[in-house]
């Protein structure tokens, strides 16, 4: 009743091809973005920004990138952590080796270097598929882990291997408070999400989806697999690299190579799987789930324990976190293998016929 598109007639091709054809959707998304930009900075405390919102935004950007590769193009990649590391270190080197390098340009250079790395390590995808490709991309993860530890040039020859970035500022706006960092990351996420959404609806996106669905058939009808797969790696790695730069610069401030280890790659893959493969909105929802759930469990479990009269030690909470997290992932995948995005679209479909059941 609330959600139907009765009376919404499209009078131009442009209107017909818009990303959100239903007016209620458009209102909702614009409202959400406006809420995120103008209301959220005033209602949450510093901890919420620093520990939950900022990592969520950065990981959502990375998850969108990984979703393009895994969800839209069907190339399983376990090297996303490494591409984040490449983006972070490349941006760091751009910042310190070039005087007066603007922050955004440094981050984009990081993304560009991650693109090159992604295309290089995406070459195996031209020969292998599925699980074997996952193993090949895992090699990327370990290679870059090793490179940033052993090749001193990347870390500017610091003896400790830890690098740090100083004051962040964009055209005079210093980014030091949690709200500033939040807005900075939100800006990146919104821009890249829109770009990604447009890309996947275009010819390239359709090429990717054809490769995902049946790559032999796609090659037969004239889609060039080399172009499609490597472009998927390139675009995906660019976003992941920019996200890596943001993670190092904005969230961590000071990092060592272990900050982008194989756990990060797995996390990103889980975000894509839980959120829904082949959906930009799904990547963002998956990121929210994976980032916020451990923290929520960490804070909620002792309270729950006290309600029942059981004091749980910090170690117990940590173990329980892992168990519940794993169990929830399995639960979600049984209930809805297509992820949170599918749950969302089911909800929308129910809303369209509400209050009727069907």
């Amino acid at each position: 009743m609330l959600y139907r598109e009765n009376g919404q007639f499209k009078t131009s091709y442009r209107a017909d091809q818009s990303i959100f054809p239903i007016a209620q959707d458009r209102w909702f998304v614009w409202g959400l973005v406006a809420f995120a930009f103008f209301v959220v900075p005033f209602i949450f405390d510093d901890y919420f920004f620093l520990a939950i919102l900022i990592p969520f935004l950065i990981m959502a950007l990375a998850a969108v990138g990984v979703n393009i590769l895994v969800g839209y193009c069907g190339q399983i990649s376990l090297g996303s952590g490494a591409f984040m590391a490449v983006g972070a270190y490349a941006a760091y080197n751009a910042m310190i080796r070039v005087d007066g390098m603007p922050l955004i340009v440094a981050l984009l250079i990081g993304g560009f270097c991650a693109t090159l790395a992604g295309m290089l390590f995406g070459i195996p995808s031209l020969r292998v598929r599925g699980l074997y490709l996952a193993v090949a991309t895992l090699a990327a993860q370990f290679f870059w882990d090793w490179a940033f530890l052993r090749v001193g040039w990347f870390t500017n020859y610091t003896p400790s291997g830890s690098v740090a970035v100083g004051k962040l500022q964009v055209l005079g706006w210093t980014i030091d408070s949690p709200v500033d960092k939040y807005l900075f990351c939100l800006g990146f996420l919104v821009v890249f999400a829109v770009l990604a959404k447009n890309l996947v609806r275009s010819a390239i996106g359709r090429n990717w989806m054809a490769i995902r669905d049946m790559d032999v058939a796609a090659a037969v009808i004239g889609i060039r697999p080399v172009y499609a797969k490597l472009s998927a790696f390139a675009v995906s790695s660019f976003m992941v690299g920019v996200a890596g730069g943001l993670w190092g610069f904005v969230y961590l401030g000071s990092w060592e190579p272990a900050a982008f280890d194989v756990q990060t790659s797995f996390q990103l893959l889980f975000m894509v799987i839980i959120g829904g493969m082949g959906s930009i909105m799904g990547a963002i929802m998956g990121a929210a789930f994976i980032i916020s759930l451990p923290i929520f469990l960490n804070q909620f479990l002792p309270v729950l324990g006290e309600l029942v009269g059981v004091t749980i030690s910090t170690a117990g909470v940590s173990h329980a976190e892992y168990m519940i997290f794993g169990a929830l992932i399995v639960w979600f995948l049984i209930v809805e293998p297509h992820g949170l995005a599918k749950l969302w679209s089911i909800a929308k479909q129910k809303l369209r016929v509400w209050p009727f059941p069907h």
Partner: protein
Amino acid sequence: MKLHKLMLGTAAAALGASALLAPVASAQAAEQFFPSLVYRTGPYAPNGTPFANGYSDYLRLVNERGGINGVKIKVEECETGYSTARIVECYERLKGANGGATVFQPLSTGGTFALTEKAPVDKIPLITAGLGRSESADGGVFKWNFPLLGTYWVAADTLVQHVGKQAGGLDKLKGKNIALIYHDSAYGKEPIPLLQKRAEMHGFKLTLLPVAHPGVEQKATWLQVRRDRPDYVFLWGWGVMNSTAIKEAVATGYPRNKMYGVWWSGAEPDVKDVAANAKGYNALALQHGAEKDASVVKEVLAKLHDKGKGTGPREEVGDVLYMRGLISAMLATEGMRVAQAKYGKGKVITGEQMRWGLENMNLTDIGLRSLGFGGVMRTTSTSCSDHMGAAWVRVHTWNGKAWEFTSDWLEGDRKVLDPMVKTTADKYGAEKGIKRRPASDCNA
């Protein structure tokens, strides 16, 4: 069909419940909040747990003794699993809780690097007793870092002095081969600059053998040790890396009495599995060793463990890492006492006041004895420029059942250390745009 609906409903509910519950702040009588960043899970838990138990027990003991001038201490633990990201998350969560955190002790060099950027902004001091960045001993640049009792350069320096003594003089080290087996992280890489300098000074060859986190893969490293047969092996490991190293040493037949661990590689969890086979393994003792006879240990057992208020197993009270936790907590509470003396006895102090307190500590023998640490530690005193306070260590050796002291007191050679600390601190200051503190800032 119904089960499917039920499952969908539960899934939706779990999703909806992801709104965060903010921790409930309870208004209580004025208490000083000490957050405790611990790792009781993960590959570093065997070593992190006794430290956390000692830390928690000492703070409880202080409360049993009546608090510091009547102000009791509130402790809250946060599990980090030795991951820098979680250390930062715990820091952010606890820095403002319960009236504001007084001091943080990350017990992780990687975490220290990350928190060094944040602590000055939030005005909360960091105590990194026996760890962290070696250059942070320079209080002129690192206003908020306190690597009390010793840094890794002190450790490396005194180890070289000790093996020099064993060899009959530092000049006898010429031509010898010293291998450093280190955890491939900021922690493990810390001693390298000083060892390279000493290698230049005395003409010994330094072989660097990194071991990737978490440190269980050491077969290749020890095969190389077996091939090269270095005269001494310095071990800079943590957690399971330590016990693995000793097991591999046994397997490859490298004599344990030529192995020297840093003070984080010389505790009971590292040698308990190997026990008799680890006999002869030496390690640095950060002033204290295993002190089962110390007066404070007896007090902890009587006032806490006998009454069921202790943390962790009773058998571990007095072990090396337990003592380290005890001492780290003691240093923090003594800093609090000094701050209270200036800013108001019996009042809760802020982070800035605590920082002043830590910078003006003077732990005398009498003071230490009254706290129960007589015979365990030497005098320590910090100042505006020296945030380390003391650079004395001893060497203890595992005799198969317990740790025994096998050396005299060794002091880090200030002539070698001070210039290096100053140069590196200056470099950090130049990178970050931090100017050296003027003398007028010292009484702030």
